């Protein structure tokens, strides 16, 4: 059985060293917990992935909490969740402090004028990747409808998310939705 300090520090390390968020962390979780130490089997790991992706929230936190819970119960979940989030939490506050001090600087302002364009491209790319994975007719219809409702009619995304979830549920009662259709 994995000790609590070890659990904490393995998540702390992954949280501190992985750039790009949850999906970038998954291979590291797998290597550590499945391949290197065998704390989880391949199947248990796949289950964890399916469940974390089927629930709302931050992928990395969901994963850490789930693995912590499986390996060491409630305390394990707490230790893992705090471990994976703590480096970001501290680092971001340090960066934010300096950022607000330098934002008036003309060099910094010019840099961020360029960076903002890159961020919009990143957001667009994130949307594009989801579009590619859901390009069945029903998916395209739902996506275009969501875009129009939020982008043109300013409906709150919260209601669109609830509504489209309900639409998916109703659609699946009429037409069989296979597991492969949902990735």
């Amino acid at each position, binding site marked *: 059985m994995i000790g609590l300090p070890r659990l904490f520090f393995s998540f702390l390390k992954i949280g501190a060293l992985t750039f790009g968020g949850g999906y970038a962390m998954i291979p590291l979780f797998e290597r550590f917990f499945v391949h290197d130490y065998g704390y989880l089997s391949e199947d248990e790991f796949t289950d964890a992935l399916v469940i974390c992706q089927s629930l709302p929230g931050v992928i990395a936190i969901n994963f850490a909490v789930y693995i912590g819970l499986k390996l060491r119960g409630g305390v394990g979940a707490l230790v893992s969740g705090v471990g994976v989030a703590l480096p970001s939490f501290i680092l971001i506050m340090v960066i934010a402090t300096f950022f607000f001090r330098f934002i008036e600087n003309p060099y910094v302002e010019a840099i961020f004028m360029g960076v903002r364009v890159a961020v919009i491209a990143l957001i667009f790319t994130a949307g594009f990747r989801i579009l590619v994975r859901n390009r069945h007719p029903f998916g395209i219809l739902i996506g275009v409808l969501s875009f129009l409702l939020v982008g043109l009619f300013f409906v709150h995304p919260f209601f669109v998310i609830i509504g*489209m979830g309900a639409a*998916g549920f109703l659609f699946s009662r009429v037409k069989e939705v296979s597991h492969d259709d949902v990735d």
Partner: protein
Amino acid sequence: MMSISLFFTFLLIGAVTFGGGYAMLPLFERMIVEGQGWLDRSLFLDMIALSQVTPGPVAINSATFIGFEIQGVVGAFFATTGVVFVPVILITLVSHYQERFKQSKAVQGVLYGLRPALFGLIFASAYSLFQDAIHDIYGVILFIVFSVLLIKFRVHPILIIVISGILGLIIYL
């Protein structure tokens, strides 16, 4: 009062967002930039850039940054705890009924509608930010070039951000 409002705003965002960091941005934009007016659009974009180039989950980085900007360390704490609150409870519940959850037709059905809704929401967010933050032809060209590099050539996001910063210095200084 501010702490409570921060906590519940992030709790709501965390409770309904499937698919992690970027999927949360449309709700961040609507609730925190437009709704509460806690951040303006350019700071919102800067915040995303900083969250991307800093290690750790993008959603946690963003929540910490926004909370910290609004109410210091206390705000950072409440925003971050808020965003993970509902998912952590759900994970705990689901882990007890794992097999039933995995095979549930209802869950599969809901996700069948939710997943594609996300690309609509994310595009809507990109569209409104585009109108606000891209003012000239350089911006339009860079947006197209960066998108192609990211999608077609799978260039690493951090490299794109670094290049965009250097180009920003050259073009806008």
